[in-house]
């Protein structure tokens, strides 16, 4: 077996509060292959974004830090790597598009400069060449008259345009991995569709592996090859996207999937087309209690769920699920 492009092993990330480390992500392992698109889904507060930041060594510290595990990029562990090494990786091998296009660009520099400086830092390009490259990138992400727009300041652009600029920054060094953390959440619905179309186009053109973080199952179904579901800092289900939508195993996943209108699904007998999971994601400090963290909200909860937390089991078909229902069925 060849080395995967990215391999996360037993990752634990904790935030320090009042003298104790409170884990917000635990026992997280996953791989990413060249050119693959992985979706990470879950509600807000389940550890998706912090996982993404950890891949770039950007967990806000203090109070946060990676307390356990490895992040192997092409076999090299990025956890505990020197800052200089991380700076070579960031934006060059692994880059990221953030959720908030309105505030993610520096207000006092032109967008051309903000793209060009990335190329200068990583490729050592001259000012003129980097600027030319920035203009090309603006054109690539679909910004009209890019040679003029490059002189614009962020406040002169709409949210959708700014997100295109963010994507241009992320792609200017032709990274091997692109992480997109809810790239459209802050945008209007029509603009959302345009941005995802852009992602689809670019995916074909650049061949980077993509990690797409979202809570939008519809987007996941369209864009990704494989899906990983996180709940309260843990991975609770993983598998190919087709099976994930058609036959979710974990009750939480079922809940997420039934939250979307079933436009692509054949009509079913189910009364509720739109279903909402009652309750909220538990706070990280409440996670030390025994039992499955989802049990208070689970509609198929069993006595056992309240006492023991199920481990992630690999099913015969290769999918992974952490739920007692699976073991009950298997037994």
């Amino acid at each position, binding site marked *: 077996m060849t080395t995967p492009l990215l391999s996360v092993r037993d990752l634990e990330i904790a935030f320090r509060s009042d003298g104790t480390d409170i884990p917000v992500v635990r026992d997280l392992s996953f791989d990413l292959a060249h050119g693959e698109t992985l979706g990470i889904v879950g509600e807000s507060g389940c550890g998706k974004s912090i996982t993404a930041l950890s891949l770039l060594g950007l967990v806000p510290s203090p*109070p946060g830090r990676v307390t356990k595990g490895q992040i192997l990029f092409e076999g090299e562990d990025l956890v505990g790597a020197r800052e200089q090494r991380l700076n070579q990786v960031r934006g060059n091998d692994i880059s990221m598009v953030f959720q908030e296009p309105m505030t993610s660009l520096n207000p006092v520099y032109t967008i051309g400069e903000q793209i060009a400086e990335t190329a200068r830092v990583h490729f050592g390009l001259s000012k003129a060449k980097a600027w030319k490259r920035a203009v090309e990138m603006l054109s690539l992400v679909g910004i009209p008259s890019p040679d003029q727009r490059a002189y614009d300041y962020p406040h002169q652009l709409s949210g959708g345009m700014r997100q295109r600029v963010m994507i241009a920054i992320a792609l200017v060094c032709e990274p091997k991995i692109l992480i997109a953390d809810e790239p459209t959440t802050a945008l209007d619905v029509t603009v959302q569709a345009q941005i995802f179309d852009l992602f689809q186009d670019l995916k074909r053109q650049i061949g980077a592996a993509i990690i797409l973080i979202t809570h939008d199952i519809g987007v996941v179904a369209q864009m990704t090859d494989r899906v990983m579901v996180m709940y309260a800092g843990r991975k609770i289900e993983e598998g190919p996207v087709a099976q994930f939508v058609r036959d979710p195993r974990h009750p939480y996943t079922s809940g997420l999937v039934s939250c979307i209108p079933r436009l692509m699904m054949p009509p079913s007998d189910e009364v509720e087309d739109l279903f909402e999971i009652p*309750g909220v994601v538990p706070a990280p400090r*409440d996670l030390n*209690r025994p039992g499955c963290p989802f049990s*208070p909200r689970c509609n198929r909860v069993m006595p056992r769920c309240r006492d023991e937390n199920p481990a992630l089991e690999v099913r015969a078909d290769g999918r992974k699920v952490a739920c007692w229902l699976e073991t009950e069925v298997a037994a």
Partner: protein
Amino acid sequence: MTDVTTTAPKPVSPSMQAWRMFRQNHAAVLGLGILIAIIVISLLGPYIYTVPPRDMVWMPLTPPGTSEYVLGTDYLGRDLLAGLINGGRVTLAVGFAAALITVAIGISVGALAGFFGGRVDNFLMRVTEFFQVLPNLLFAMVVVMLFGPDLLNISIAIGIVSWTSTARLTRGEFMRIREMDFVKAERSIGAGNTRLIWRVILPNAAPPLIVVSALAIGTAILFEAGLSFLGLSDPNSTSWGRMIGDNRPYILDSPWGVTFPGLCIFLTVLAISLIGDGLNDAFNPKLRER
């Protein structure tokens, strides 16, 4: 869900919660202790330490620790300790009175501007801007010089030049809270403007206003000290600032004459600043990380 409710902490009132946070801030508690001590000494001190502060009681320019007057005497042979104890009353009185005027004007202007918005806001903000342009110390000097240096005039002068930042803060808070659902609910059940301003919005805007009010006392004390130092003090009373002004020409002969009153002002204002910081943290736990 049941186990969640059993472990939830008992509900405590917001002010109790703020007090708990405040108590955790050792510097703020220290500040509160210092301030209480200074207030108590100023109020009760003159009855216990009965040396007259304005009479010659000993050789002029006696250094501290060389006579029964432990902090020494000034150039007129007045007991420095007696001066400090009595001067504290004046300094604190003017400080509190001026802060009261500052806060009263600031909150009234800010509340009206923030609550009514539109033209009222426009006009009141123009007035506020005008008072911001006035150089504060110079203007206070002019007022006190023209109308006479008694304690009330000094307090008013300080209040007039200090209220603008309180007004801006109050205005901001009112504009924010005015749009909240509970205010709309109160309005919909027929609450009048007076009730909305004083009983509904103001209590909810209280936390930041309490902090600036506390800090206003410190600023006012510094201000009073500055005016007294320039000779604009009530001729019939002694304040710490005035003691510094009086003793300044003699710093070479009796450095203690300016050092001790200055230390008193410094300690008092420092205590108030610490309390202010503590209150700020107590009301905004989220900012504590900074």
